[in-house]
């Protein structure tokens, strides 16, 4: 692939890449012109590295599994139900939760760009944003799932959700068997990011 992912844990033994230099130059220019506050940039990075990510969505899923009233609120108005847990903001303005069942599996994609529910899942992984996933999730969802190690029998219906507007989709996986004794925190630990996109079964 064209991605040129230098290992940045080598403490500068490699010369910085061209793109790294250009980005640094732009930031310096924007700071010099008073257009951005570098401390605000740090705070944005901190938010997406440490505060917003798939653990948020996992809490939503675990609560939906263990609290029938919450599950109903999630069905009626997922945006409000998710906001109850404090997860709000850009790319989560209009949330819809889609529930897997024994006979039906949901898969979420954005073929036109990389729309993704940031408040509950954080920033999307590289594969979600990549042309291979964006192109094939709609025409060959079963082949795509196989690349994630998921093989679904033909009798299971697949619903693909292409995020073409500002509605964002969160997959509620089926609750795994033999988890009756687990509390919400323990259940949340079972929920994976890919499970909430639909590229994994729990």
């Amino acid at each position, binding site marked *: 692939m*064209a*991605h*040129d992912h230098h290992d*940045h844990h080598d403490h500068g033994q490699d010369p910085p890449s061209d*793109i*790294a230099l*250009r*980005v*640094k130059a*732009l*930031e*310096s*220019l*924007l700071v*010099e*012109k*008073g*257009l*951005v*506050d570098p*401390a*605000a*940039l*740090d*705070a*944005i*990075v901190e*938010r*997406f*590295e440490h505060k917003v*990510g798939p653990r948020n969505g996992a809490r939503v899923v675990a609560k939906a599994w263990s609290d029938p009233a919450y599950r109903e609120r999630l069905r009626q108005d997922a945006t409000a139900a998710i906001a109850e847990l404090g997860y*709000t903001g*850009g790319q989560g*303005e*209009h949330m819809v939760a889609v529930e897997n069942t024994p006979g039906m599996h949901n898969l979420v994609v954005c*073929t*036109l760009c990389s729309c993704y529910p940031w408040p509950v899942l954080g920033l999307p992984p*590289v*594969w979600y944003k*990549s*042309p*291979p996933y964006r*192109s094939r*999730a*709609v*025409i060959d969802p*079963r082949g795509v799932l196989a*690349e*994630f190690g998921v093989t679904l029998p*033909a*009798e299971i219906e*697949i*619903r*693909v959700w*292409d995020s*073409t*507007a*500002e*509605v964002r989709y969160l997959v509620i996986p089926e609750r795994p068997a033999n988890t009756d004794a687990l509390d919400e925190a323990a259940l949340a630990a079972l929920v994976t990011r*890919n499970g909430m996109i639909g590229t994994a079964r729990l």
Partner: protein
Amino acid sequence: MNGVHDMGGMHGLGPIAPDTDEPVFHADWEKRVLAMVIASPTRGNIDAGRHRRELIPGPDYLRLSYYERWFEALCAMLVGSGAVSAEELASGRADPTAAKATPRLAAGDVDAALSRQGSYLREGPAPAFKPGDAVRARNLNPVGHTRLPRYVRGRLGVVERAHGAHVYPDTHAHGGGEDPRPLYTVRFTARELWGPDAAPDDNLRLDLWEPYLERA
């Protein structure tokens, strides 16, 4: 526009290469690009931002990584909006005669600003369709921004849900105002879109604005 960004249904773009344990960012410069895009004075019209990334020429779009595309589009929007001049961008030095701005977003406001719950729902025209209505996606090929993917144009579907009137990207991306239009979730069978070899029970849902649809 019928650009390479509209890639739903294409083959041949390579393996997916899932990475179950990847970091949020793969390089420090990616962090700064994301943060600059969010803090930029050009932030605010998501449709214009998307369209700017679509305008990256196709071969470059496919060669560049996600954050490289974001960076190229950010530079173009900064110059296009007049926030930065082409000379400043090329030299990396601020024009000493230009007044110094005040950042739109201060560090202490970041979490509140990014947690603020916005909405794209607006007062708008009454919906022409209701759930259960058969519709056909129109065969439209605008040269500007649209969220009607090529792979559903001309295809038959069923309205599954009405979302009210939402900001209409085809107008909003081009500075024409929000122009709210009714938005629907429309269901298409996989066989309608991909032919008889598709799995009989599989189906797809897209969120489509009313001008993309006609009664079937």
